[in-house]
């Protein structure tokens, strides 16, 4: 039974992933993502001037790139199913809601993983120019992938709220922006300035993508950060299941 269940998820994931590449959307996305990655890293990130053999400029800009590009992937996850009515087909097949949510989420995650992996020329460049800590870079990629998963899980839930992809996109950007900003020193200072106790500030910072990503991007994999992202993904996917169950009818 459990192998059959895993199999079902992979069937759904494969179908979804294929559908990305059936239209030009996937290619357009990947090209834009790669171009922006390079622009941010080499020009805005002072990659050369820093004179350091690491990918910190790349990983520092990645969350901001994710903020706008990942909602563009996640917006169609459920909004499109609802708009075309295929959600009715999908959910009346012998598939549980969890399998459907997970299958679609995994497809989006794998797709993001492919886009992320295609940034490898940056990694080659830094290895050609110097002698970076490749373990730290690997950790950075791993952290980025986890963070992308969290963004996508948020997007999956918000995409289930509406049949309009534009609304799904905007909602996801706003919520992800809030989740990122929660860890920004400026915001945290502001909150502290309002007279909130340190514990509240810490709690807000603890919810932030950036706080948890910062450590990983420097190559430090802390179990707590890992757990944070996994819980985040789990929570938002659970919320997706709840939202779909509530909203599938309208």
């Amino acid at each position, binding site marked *: 039974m459990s192998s059959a269940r895993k199999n079902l998820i992979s069937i759904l994931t494969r179908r979804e992933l294929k559908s990305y590449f059936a*239209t030009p959307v996937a290619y357009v996305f990947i090209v834009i993502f790669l171009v922006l990655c390079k622009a941010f890293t080499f020009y805005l990130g002072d990659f050369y001037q820093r004179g350091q053999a690491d990918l910190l400029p790349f990983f520092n800009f990645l969350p901001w790139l994710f903020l706008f590009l990942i909602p563009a992937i996640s917006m169609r996850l459920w909004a499109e199913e609802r708009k*075309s009515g295929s959600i*009715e087909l999908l959910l*009346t*097949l012998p598939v549980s809601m969890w399998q459907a949510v997970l299958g679609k989420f995994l497809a989006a995650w794998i797709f993001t993983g492919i886009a992320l992996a295609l940034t490898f020329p940056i990694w080659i460049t830094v290895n050609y120019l110097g002698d970076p800590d490749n373990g730290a870079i690997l950790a950075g990629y791993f952290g980025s992938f986890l963070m992308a998963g969290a963004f996508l899980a948020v997007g999956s839930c918000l995409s289930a709220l509406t049949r309009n992809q534009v609304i799904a996109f905007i909602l996801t950007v706003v919520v992800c922006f809030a989740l990122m900003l929660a860890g920004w020193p400026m915001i945290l200072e502001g909150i502290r300035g309002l007279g909130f106790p340190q514990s509240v500030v810490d709690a807000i910072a603890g919810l932030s993508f950036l706080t948890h990503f910062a450590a990983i991007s420097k190559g430090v994999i802390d179990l707590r950060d890992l757990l944070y992202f996994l819980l985040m993904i789990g929570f938002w996917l659970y919320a997706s299941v709840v939202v779909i*169950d509530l909203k599938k009818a309208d």
Partner: protein
Amino acid sequence: MIETRDLCKRYGDLKAVDGISFKVEPGQVLGFLGPNGAGKSTTMKMIAGFLTPTSGSASVCGFDVQAQPLEAKRMLGYLPEGAPSYGEMTVAGFLQFIADVRGLDGDVRRRGIDNAVGRLSLTSVMGQTIDTLSKGFRRRVGLAQAILHDPKVLVLDEPTDGLDPNQKHEVRALIQTMSRDKTIIVSTHVLEEVHAVCSRAIIIADGKVLADDTPQGLEARSRYHQAVSLSTENPKAAQELLTRIGDVAAVEIDPQDGRVTAFPRKGKPIFQAVTDALKQGNFPFSEIALEQGRLDEVFRQITQPRKVAAVTKQEAA
């Protein structure tokens, strides 16, 4: 077998489905009739396990749709309203995907797909993406998807909508051949379809079952059931002649084509009396027919009794 028990679906104050109970056995084709917005699709969505009933229950082959959704869905082939599918997939890819999800393997899988493709004449479009297909083809892809795993129970929401007359005929024939060992529910608002495929019809309006009968039984409720109609050069004289027959309740002349129809008193056969009267009076007529009853009239009578009554009153005045 499909069974619903006091099935209800409420949206806020609106009762989309209000206590629908019925049971369909294998070998039966149940036609679901009703005006738009009557609750046909909502009922079917609850049977298929897409919508959760507000109260009441539905079961498919003994599996409660809410308690054992996966078992119920395995038994079921479902064509949702509008035949949605994944537009960017090819027909072949889409059917393969459904076969995968249904867990079909080896020979069963090949036979299932071949059979569905053959029965719905999809061979010519297997390599096309569904988005590029005509409405009729899309509907047939939806049907193919529903029958792929040779399900015991079929729920088809407007299976012939958007098909041309030839395709309609084929789909009806398909439903009839499949009906031998399956339980089938078909919703439609094409009344002729009820005759063509259904062994039983349920008329619903405002979420309630208003009639549950065989198509013949429904027709028998019509004013036209057992009425006699004829075409003649002289309708006025025919009206006079036929009104004199004891069991004839009324004689009407169609204002458009001048056809004369004699309505019987309830349960009295008048065909013999009418033909005798015509023969005796040596009355000339070009053609005469015994009416079976008109479903469209019964449908209107049942779904909007007040409106029909008002119209009849107006006509009488």
